[in-house]
């Protein structure tokens, strides 16, 4: 359903662009999608992303940093790892205790426009992967709307949803915290990582996805994984 809505929305923008010039970077990214959904995941490229923000409420918070890493050919490519810091509009506030980013570090950050540009270049032709996509996407979509006049509308895989479906299928009880990234990783014999840094979390999510797909086994189309 969500896929359909995505295409409908995109079609509308295509036909009646609100401001064609502003939309250009996003349009380029959309065009690069091609037949991605039809490919086996090992032949496709995936961009695993994690974002840190100053609040869990979209209305109150802002993006602080984004980290990502590419999965290609069924393997995580460490050379593709990026970690970008944003120059905040407001102070970091209380969330500094969670993600260890302090104002002074963020001072050296880049502008949102530059971040989104790099992000869209990395996302072109790839499906996005998040652990708990709605939160990160809400912030990225808001940034996209602000800059390009439209949400991202890119294909998205959510490792939390994959895990939830798997647990429900095996009738395992969903206890609190059982879907957190670290809890999911532990089920696949993945090592402990220090949490809460956008790139480390992106890498941790990427490994989780590889583990989930290895356990599913066989050929899996990207389309079957999309939320």
């Amino acid at each position, binding site marked *: 359903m969500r896929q359909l809505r995505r295409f409908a929305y995109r079609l509308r923008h295509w036909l009646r662009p609100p401001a064609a010039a502003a939309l250009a970077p996003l349009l380029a990214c959309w065009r690069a999608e091609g037949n991605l959904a039809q490919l086996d995941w090992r032949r496709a490229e995936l961009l695993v992303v994690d974002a840190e923000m100053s609040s869990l409420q979209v209305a109150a918070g802002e993006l602080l940093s984004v980290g990502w890493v590419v999965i290609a050919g069924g*393997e995580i490519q460490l*050379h593709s790892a990026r*970690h970008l810091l944003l120059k905040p509009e407001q102070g970091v506030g209380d969330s500094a205790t969670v993600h260890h980013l302090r104002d002074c570090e963020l001072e050296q950050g880049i502008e949102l426009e530059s971040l989104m540009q790099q992000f869209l270049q990395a996302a072109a032709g790839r499906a996005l992967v998040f652990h708990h996509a709605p939160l990160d996407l809400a912030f990225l979509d808001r940034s996209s709307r602000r800059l390009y006049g439209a949400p991202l509308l890119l294909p998205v895989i959510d490792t939390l949803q994959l895990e939830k479906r798997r647990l429900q299928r095996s009738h395992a009880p969903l206890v609190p915290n059982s879907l957190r990234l670290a809890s999911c990783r532990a089920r696949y*014999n993945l090592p402990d990582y220090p949490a809460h840094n956008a790139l480390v979390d992106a*890498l941790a999510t990427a490994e989780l996805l590889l583990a989930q797909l290895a356990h599913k086994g066989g050929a899996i189309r990207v389309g079957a994984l999309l939320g």
Partner: protein
Amino acid sequence: MAKAAQMSPELQGIRDFLVQCVPFDQLSEAQLEQLVGAIVISYHRRGHVFHAAGDEGGLRILRSGAAELRSQDDSLLDRFGERVGFDLKGLELEQSGVRATLIEDSLIYRLPEESYRALRKKDRDFDRFFHSQRSRRMRRAGMYESGSEEMMQQVGDLMTRNLLVVAPTTSIQQTALLMSQRRVSSVLIQADSSLLGIVTDRDLRSRAVAKGLGGAQPIAEIMTANPQTISADSTVFDATLLMTRNGIHHVPVLEQQALAGIITASDLLLARRDDPVYLVQHIGRQDTVAGIREHVKLLPDLMVQWVNAGVNAARVSRVLTAVSDAVTERLIELYVEASGPPPTGFCWLGFGSQGRAEQLLGSDQDNALLIAEPVEGEAAEWFTGLATWVCDGLNECGYVYCPGKVMATTDEWRQPLAGWRDTVDRWTRSPTSDAVMRVSIFFDLRCIYGDQALCEQLQQHMLAKAGSNTIFLAALAENALANTPPLGIFRQFVVERNGEHEHQLNLKKRGVLPIIDLVRVHALAHGVSAVNTIERLQALADAKVMSIEDSRNLQDALRLIMQTRIQGQVRQLTAGVPADNYIDPAELSRQVRGLLRDSFSLVADAQQSIKLNYRAGL
């Protein structure tokens, strides 16, 4: 987008992991950063197989999980867990058809072939490490040999500065007189502070007296002109070589081109004062137990010196065994001196580590008396007295009483040959666990003193009885499997959970003994009469009952564990605490830890093969 020239600091975690892996710990920061950027990560389920043929190559390192390597004929080559890397293409060169199977779900870091080759090309140590994996890597590490420290001492520190120098015109008689007064065996002839020649005691005899040369003749007539000299900063080794090559015993020593002293063959011998040969000789000259004990007390210090000088563990234990043999021998001699000659032939037997010539410090005594024929009355008392005297003496010298009472003082361990034969028959006929334990001690026997032939007769009887008895062999094999190497589910050292040795490994019980036990089973089954474990392994390979590879691997494993154990003891002695057999794996270097784990897995495999070969008799 340009490739990252620099490692993102957030990938520090991956770098930190890599440096925990041998040999990545040897690489520079810059090399590591480059590596991290090149790594690709994959995840595979248990049961996934990597075949060498058609593999994309590169070095795979287990980030989590466990794997095993198997050869084409399905025999297990290695089994390992996280932090261990394998290069299938490289392994394929050594072992065609090799494959790696994951035995747990595994997260794998792969350094692609191109980067891996580039690194090996640039970094020689890194290359050498991977040149051939495991068994050869271990063999190299087991051979810890280096030159002895004594041989590296400087001549200047040992030479005699008390020089007798005369002018070339001094008469032969005058020179001889001066030599006698100064109690020196050589004289140097010098003019205008330049060295012209040397004359020794022997020259006086052969060149003057024997030829009837008058004492009034000048000394220059009989001197060796332009003698060989050596500089003060040369080593004992250099001096020894110079003397043996030229057949001389006196060499003038120069310091900054000027005559400074003389070094003689006996100076060189004295320099080797910590030579065990001298220790053994000294022990043989003592007349009291206290005198012997004084010499045995030197052993811990000497062992530290030997090990620090690079003497390997096998040699150190041979020397320590030679010393305990000498103590036993001297105690028996003292008893014979005091109580008269033995009423009949006998043989003093050493067992266990003494029997195998594998003793280290703190060994307890395991011994027995083998008497040629049954004795009664006074004759029996003579032997009881001997046993008591020797065992008490050994205890006083630090070889404490055997807690299991394996000593000649007990009636069971002091018997005539016929009695011993019956005992062996009984043990092998009904292999209770107690009997098996006793036989496993008894089978490692050696004649320490007395009639060697008696010992051989008994040994032949044992080999004949035990080797053909499959039920007995099965029981012995069972016993050999009682102590397993301290490896957890393929990767962690299993350390003591609590008590005095928490977090430590008992290298004797869990490392050395399992090897000794399983090699003994093979030796007994195949009638090998050697007793030393390394010799047994060689004999087993020679007799083609064990493959050369297996034999070597076990020898290497034993050497490495022994070496680790002895170095642990040296560390303890240096720190002023008594030496024991425990070691904390955390205190070992990463490389030794890796090698130790390799050794343990070899032992575990060898135990498996014992299980298959002998336990069928049960």
